């Protein structure tokens, strides 16, 4: 089932778009995961990245591609993406835990230390999570980026928290 039919992305679509991240890169720590598989004319992710780690190029409808080695997982692209389609996943956080960072524009904004319910791309609750970090500097232009700590096995699934 494609995103056009169901409204959420499948793993196969990420692989087909060459947006899946290698296990070797995941082992090194935080990395940007771009989930943008339709050719739309848009490139703020590319201009947001200081490390030349996201490439769209010409034409502007190219799918964004991550250069795994250049990406530092800094997250500058996350709040800049108008589609809210970039996440920072850190599978090397600890032996048992991972972190996922995502844009979150609903109120109330989560606060560090709170317990929320982490959801997958379909909005289904996967597990409880603890808010690890909330970043909302002026450069993010009112798109807070929330990092949650979750059991490692949910790192490929969790992409947000359930709206309170």
């Amino acid at each position: 089932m494609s995103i056009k039919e169901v409204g959420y992305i499948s793993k196969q679509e990420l692989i087909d778009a060459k947006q899946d991240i290698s296990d070797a890169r995941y082992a090194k720590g935080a990395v940007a995961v771009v989930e943008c598989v339709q050719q739309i004319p848009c490139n703020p992710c590319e201009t947001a990245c200081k490390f030349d780690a996201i490439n769209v190029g010409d034409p502007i409808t190219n799918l964004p591609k991550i250069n795994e080695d250049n990406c530092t997982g800094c997250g500058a692209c996350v709040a800049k993406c108008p589609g809210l389609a970039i996440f920072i996943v850190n599978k090397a956080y600890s032996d048992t835990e991972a972190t996922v960072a995502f844009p979150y524009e609903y109120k109330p904004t989560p606060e560090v230390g709170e317990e929320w319910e982490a959801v997958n791309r379909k909005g289904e609750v996967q597990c409880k999570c603890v808010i690890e970090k909330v970043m909302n500097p002026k450069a993010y232009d009112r798109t807070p980026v929330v990092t949650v700590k979750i059991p490692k096995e949910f790192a490929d699934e969790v992409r947000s928290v359930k709206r309170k």
Partner: protein
Amino acid sequence: MLSKDLLVVGAGPAGLATAIQAAKNGVKDITVVDLNMKPGGQLFKQIHKFFGSHEHRAGIRGMDTGAAMLEEAQSLGVDIWLNSACVGFYDDKVACIEQGQPDGTKKIVFMKPKTIAICTGGQENVVRFTGWTTPGVMGAGAAQTMVNVNKVQPGKKIVMLGTGNVGLIVSYQLMQSGCDVVCLVEALPGINGYGVHASKISRAGVPIYTKHTIKEVKGNGPNGRVSEVTIVEIDPKFNHIPGTEKTFEADTVTLAAGLKPVSDLVKLQDIDLVFNGPFGGWVPVHNEKMQSTCKGIYVAGDTTGVEEANTALEEGNVAGVSIAEELGCITAAEADAKRKEIWERLDGLRMGPFGERRAAAKKEVMEQFPGVRA
């Protein structure tokens, strides 16, 4: 009678860009009229970050682009009349304008501009179903204005009809305002707008029912307001499939079934129109200068075919340059060079699977241009 170099009708992205670009290229006496209380057209209710490239202020929220454009127009000396409607044209392109006065009354003003740009935008389509006139059924654009401009929730539990970008974005913004969106309903087999917008809706756990439509809305709420909504699956010919009904408790239904170009003013002039399905209805034929078939009258933005804000803005830029050329402020060669640059950006905005259809529609409209009549 007032005489002006340029009258722009509509202060949305197309109209403001026309005025700004004309002023930057030397056109002096410019008036923009808009029937709303605030300029900016739909930009001020677009609280989301826009797609596009750096040149298109991508990643910037629409409302902030609106504010920047307004400031630029004002700093260039463009006169903006709000609460003012161009209600008609007399012979020889004399415009009749209901000018809003500070005390809220209106005064009829006649203006004979050397050039006119018609940038009147689009209008939401209506969908009819049993109970479609029930209080609480409204356009998605109206709901968006309520939450983002007036800061009023249209309701608590909302059913959205339509999954184009308007349906998807407004659903998201309704949730941002604290409303619950019960579901989205789409007649087509697939989601019509960008997948990334649909993903936001899915992450919020809101179901999207494709191949469905609204069968009936019941108005048993307070003062006859919407109380429940029944949706039904449809076959490829859009016939209801009996037995597939689902009923939801809701107090609001928002309709996002596309827009059509507003061409009322265009029709009052000697301007050729053509029907274009992808563009939403009757549109004025024009050339690559955004000239209509009537000398001195230019068209830009959704009036010429429903697209999106950045495209409207760039078409306005083209019109502004062309108007400066017609008024002798810049040479034909200068105008050609500027237009070439803008058209390259426009072509970029009409690329990819979502843009190709619009690129083809625009080509079709322009190919039918028979030339300018004096």
